[in-house]
């Protein structure tokens, strides 16, 4: 035990002395996939267009809510190509034009792009302008041609544009009106040279424009008054008929455009449907000759035929997805419906002319974890027996994507994982007795063969077949994918919460989904219409006296979108993936504070702060209240009001509000507040230390035998503010009127420990806090480069403890308690460096004991993760370090931080749409696990100071074995030789004795 402690103490020194020259830890190309995995996703599909007409690759082009345009293989669901647009570049519509270009409209109808269908290369890009901010926008490629050009009609920002498909040239443009008209549909009747645009001007006025398709001239503008007013829903049934809903949502208004004349014909829904009451709304599906109306819990299909006849064709239960009409041969249209009942989903494809007979009716077994179908897109094909067949692309409630064909799920994609909200980790179960461990290598021979192959690889003697075999062997190594805890702590469960309210457990070995759960408490229900999942916490981590219990996680959410909507809690077993219980709270949740106390079953106490500033204790047990009441006087929290620029610190009171007898509710008393002047400072970033971070030592020994004491406090808060004028994007502010102020605040007393102003700098600020330092990234307007600054904070009150004599006679204050109330004497060291790239996320590597040196994990704008050694961001770097400083590992000062390509932990991969980086310590001190998420997921292991405590994957056991064998053999050989020699010697002595007996006596 002592030796171990000694080693732990000595290790940092060892590390420093060993690894000064080259801090990068790079990967060889053949090691890709050995300890990392990468999955590509696209997000929840909004639009889908099939491309199946031609022979060859059949594909479906989709756009998603993560602003992704992708072309998917219709056979297997793989991504052919994919583009992730900017975060402000929301896709409005996509379509395929001329059979070879994918056209996408984005950024509220202002950017039109064409992508080459086979390879995704951007062909052209057009910027469409308009003066008014119109609400609706869409593109509608038609069979319209102007001078042999294929044309796309685009409506956006109050203008109609005709854009050439070949080069994106705007052929004509018509600004429809300066008034605030709300255009709903733009269409061209077949064989006509006219384009109609129909919309509302006010809620009771319908406007119809007629435009010449060849040159965009406005031919006619007519308005029709409807005294009842419109609700805003308008459905295009055919090229001369539209159906609107009146403002009471109980009447359908049929709008006929015949020969340029407009007529309105209202009819009561109650006449169509018996027992109708309440409100109706139109479904957005584009149906031809039909209309889908949602009434309470039903969807009613209404056929619009003849002059003024509306007839109900079917009434189905509401949670159902309705596709757009699919045009078939001979003027028929097909409509797809997907409903769920019990364990099955039912796909029905109906023909508009013959509603009663189904073209297809299929039922597919589908577990409850995918929820209901939200969207369906259908596509037809001809079966081998020449009968028509349909395939359906279904978007489920959990954002996953399924392709159904012939009653089977051809493929499915877990695209909910593209929108992760929060992540946490859980240990795997301990290996039980009886479970075979050595399933990995079947016998000694195979084991040896494997290692001989590896040896060949290291000696560069392997041929190409051998290399393939080695790679396969490494990837297949089932060691990393086992479902039990391993000695090094590499195997873990990554528990992620997605936007759809689904929790997934991913295995850290290969990223497979171990279990997934669509949280029942986060599904739309009568009591909660818009549940929002927010964050996930470790609730119960059994390790000491509750070993038999499974760990569990806490999922926190709102029932609504705002801060004051009531909260939802859900508790999920981390091993089985079952919801243990859930509760809908009466109070809101503004903040969740995991407390550093656990009860006897290792449940962590959590404090939930509601919007009124009251604290609620969970779990609601007597034991928890007993533990908490002891600690209550020492519990503090703070709130940050970014809009008003106020940070407030609170203590707790024993009672809730007067008159409320809830023993789990505690009132708060304001202890301090910091008000930032709103005319000069605006809070843009705050960060604190990670709660689970472990600091190995408080002392930092310098090379000249001096000691500095790190100021380590769990309560330090880093706040960055900027000038309000510079709060926008880069390019919006002058250097003269922008500044950035960084604060270090003690969150118990509200004392500002340090304040530094960076003139001519602005956000966005990304910061990371660890031990006694904070590193933050911002933009310097004067140099026009990004900068990274470091602030290190040291405790001066302990600086006197260096005197050995004082230590010996006990006159030191090392054992004196550290109080958050005492006024700390701190000194601060800081330095700034240039950094080339924009940053999306920044984190720091965490290890089990905090001995290993730290790496900053920087998610760059190119969606890569760069591991930058903390020693580059050291405030003590100087231009000419003294020899003793060099010995300590101080790198000579450079004005910018190096970007070494080999230190990208994502190597040649990109984590598209990178949003967060999570670092989790492994049990092995040298190693940390890294999980980066965005649209893609990426996981790897990093060893900031190399794996000094274990053999690398490359370690050649065969070489070791050969050496040992050789050693043993040589020992035997020498032994035999020496035996022989000895024998000879003995004979010699004997002969000497025989022939010279006199000499002996």
């Amino acid at each position: 035990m002592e030796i171990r402690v000694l080693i732990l103490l000595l290790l940092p020194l060892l590390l420093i002395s060993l690894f000064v020259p080259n801090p990068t830890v790079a990967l060889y190309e053949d090691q890709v996939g050995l300890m990392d995995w990468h999955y590509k996703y696209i997000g929840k599909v909004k639009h889908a267009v099939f491309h199946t007409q031609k022979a060859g690759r059949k594909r479906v082009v989709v756009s998603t809510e993560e602003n992704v345009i992708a072309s998917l293989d219709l056979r297997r669901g793989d991504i052919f190509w994919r583009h992730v647009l900017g975060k402000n570049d929301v896709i409005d519509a996509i379509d395929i034009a001329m059979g070879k270009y994918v056209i996408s409209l984005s950024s509220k109808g202002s950017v039109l792009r064409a992508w080459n269908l086979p390879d995704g290369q951007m062909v052209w890009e057009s910027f469409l302008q308009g003066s008014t901010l119109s609400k609706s926008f869409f593109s509608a490629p038609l069979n319209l041609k102007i001078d042999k050009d294929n044309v796309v009609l685009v409506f956006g920002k109050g203008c109609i544009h005709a854009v050439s498909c070949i080069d994106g040239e705007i052929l004509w443009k018509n600004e429809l009106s300066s008034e605030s008209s709300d255009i709903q549909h733009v269409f061209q009747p077949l064989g006509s040279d006219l384009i109609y645009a129909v919309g509302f001007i006010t809620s009771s006025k319908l406007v119809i424009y007629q435009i010449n398709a060849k040159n965009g001239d406005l031919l006619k503008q007519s308005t029709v008054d409807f005294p009842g007013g419109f609700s805003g829903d308008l459905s295009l049934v055919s090229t001369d008929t539209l159906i609107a809903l009146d403002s009471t949502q109980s009447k359908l208004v049929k709008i006929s455009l015949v020969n340029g004349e407009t007529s309105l014909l209202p009819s009561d829904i109650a006449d169509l449907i018996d027992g109708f009451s309440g409100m109706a709304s139109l479904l957005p599906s584009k149906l031809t000759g039909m209309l889908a109306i949602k009434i309470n819990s039903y969807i009613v299909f209404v056929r619009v035929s003849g002059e003024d006849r509306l007839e109900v064709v079917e009434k189905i239960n509401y949670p159902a997805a309705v596709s757009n009409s699919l045009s078939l041969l001979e003027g028929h249209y097909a409509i797809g419906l997907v409903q769920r009942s019990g364990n099955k989903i039912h796909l029905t494809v109906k023909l508009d002319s013959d509603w009663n007979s189904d073209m297809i009716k299929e039922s597919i077994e589908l577990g409850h974890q995918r929820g209901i179908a939200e969207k369906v897109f259908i596509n037809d094909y001809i079966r081998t027996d020449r009968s028509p067949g349909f395939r359906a692309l279904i978007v489920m409630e959990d954002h996953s994507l399924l392709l159904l064909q012939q009653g089977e799920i051809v493929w499915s994609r877990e695209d909910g994982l593209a929108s992760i909200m929060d992540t946490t980790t859980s240990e795997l179960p301990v290996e039980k007795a009886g479970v075979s461990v050595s399933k990995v290598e079947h016998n000694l021979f195979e084991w040896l063969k494997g290692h001989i192959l590896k040896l060949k690889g290291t000696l560069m003697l392997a041929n190409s077949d051998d290399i393939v075999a080695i790679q396969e062997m490494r990837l297949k190594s089932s060691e990393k994918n086992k479902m039990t805890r391993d000695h090094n702590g590499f195997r873990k469960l990554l528990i992620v919460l997605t936007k759809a309210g689904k929790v997934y457990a991913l295995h850290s070995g290969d990223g497979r989904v171990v279990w997934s759960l669509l949280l029942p408490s986060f599904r739309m229900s009568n009591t909660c219409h818009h549940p929002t999942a927010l964050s996930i916490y470790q609730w119960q981590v059994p390790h000491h006296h509750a070993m038999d219990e499974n760990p569990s996680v806490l999922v926190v959410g709102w029932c609504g979108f705002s801060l004051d909507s009531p909260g939802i809690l859900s508790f999920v077993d981390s091993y089985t993936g079952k919801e243990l219980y859930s509760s809908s709270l009466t109070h809101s949740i503004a903040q969740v504070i995991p407390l550093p106390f656990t009860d006897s079953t290792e449940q962590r106490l959590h404090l939930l702060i509601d919007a009124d500033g009251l604290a609620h204790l969970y779990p609601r047990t007597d034991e928890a209240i007993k533990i908490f009441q002891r600690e209550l006087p020492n519990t503090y929290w703070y709130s940050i009001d970014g809009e008003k620029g106020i940070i407030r610190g609170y203590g707790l009171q024993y009672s809730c509000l007067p008159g409320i007898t809830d023993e789990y509710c505690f009132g708060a008393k304001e202890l301090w507040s910091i008000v930032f002047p709103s005319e000069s400072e605006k809070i843009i970033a705050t960060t604190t230390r990670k709660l689970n971070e472990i600091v190995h030592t408080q002392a930092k020994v310098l090379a000249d035998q001096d000691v500095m004491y790190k100021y380590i406090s769990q309560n330090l808060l880093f706040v960055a503010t900027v000038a309000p004028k510079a709060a926008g994007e880069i390019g919006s502010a002058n250097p003269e009127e922008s500044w950035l102020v960084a604060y270090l605040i003690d969150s118990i007393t509200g004392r500002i420990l340090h304040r530094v102003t960076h003139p001519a700098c602005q956000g966005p600020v990304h910061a990371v806090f660890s031990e006694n330092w904070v590193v933050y990234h911002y933009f310097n307007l004067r140099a026009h480069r990004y900068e990274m600054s470091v602030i290190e904070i040291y405790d001066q009150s302990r600086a006197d403890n260096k005197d050995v004599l004082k230590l010996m006679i006990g006159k030191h204050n090392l054992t004196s308690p550290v109080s958050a109330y005492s006024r700390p004497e701190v000194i601060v060291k800081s330095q700034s460096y240039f950094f080339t790239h924009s940053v999306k996320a920044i984190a720091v590597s965490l290890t089990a004991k905090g001995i290993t040196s730290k790496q900053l994990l920087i998610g760059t704008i190119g969606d890569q993760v760069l591991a930058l050694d903390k020693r580059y961001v050291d405030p003590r770097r100087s231009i000419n370090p003294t020899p003793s400083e060099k010995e300590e590992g101080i790198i000579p000062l450079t004005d910018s931080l190096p970007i070494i390509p080999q230190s990208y932990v994502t190597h040649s991969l990109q984590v598209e749409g990178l949003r967060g980086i999570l670092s989790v310590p492994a049990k092995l001190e040298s190693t940390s696990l890294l999980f980066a998420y965005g649209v893609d997921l990426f996981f790897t292991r990093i060893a900031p100071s190399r794996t000094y405590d274990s053999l690398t994957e490359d370690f050649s056991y065969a070489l070791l074995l050969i050496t040992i064998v050789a050693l043993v053999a040589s020992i035997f050989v020498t032994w035999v030789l020496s035996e022989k020699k000895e024998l000879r010697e003995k004979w010699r002595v004997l002969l000497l004795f025989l022939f010279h007996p006199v000499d002996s006596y």
Partner: protein
Amino acid sequence: MDASRPIFAALIALLFFFSLPCALSVSSAHGEGYAITGRVRIEGLGKGFGIPGKTLNAKVILNGGQQVTFLRADGYFSFYNVSAGTHLIEVSAMGYFFSPVRVDVSARNRGKVQAALTENRKGLTELVLEPLREEEYYDVREPFSIMSLVKSPMGLMMGFMLIVMFVMPKLMENMDPEEIRRAQEEMRSQGVPSLANLLPGAGRS
């Protein structure tokens, strides 16, 4: 890094020679803002200006993510509706290191664009972005050499053994015969060392 320095110098030189006579890319004024048009050129990939989009998937980013655009087949890109002022353009292309570019859009001069690389403060007369260097994300395995084997701990062990086996007897020869005699005497008194004696626990039995 050192190896890439000459390449980088060559690129800069190239850029200077080619671009002097060219006019700076002029942006056209739109209703609300200006447009910035430029191109990305990567030597040795495709034919001159072309970049195979499928292999590169390059993005051009304005102001750290305010706008993101893609390259056309000829390497051109455009940002629309950009306000007058100083902006930052970054190029993200796997395998290449691009310097961010500072772009000044003049309000007075009909949105005239001036550009400079921020990494080395080199002015650009034309908005043609070229990588400063190629990025290699993997370490290259060093070819097998006897030295690396010798240097490894096991190699050292072997070496030591060889020394003991071959050099020690030589040393013995040079020793004083009297001393050898004495040593042998000593050995004889202790008995012959056998392998069994070397093994732990064997002595006890």
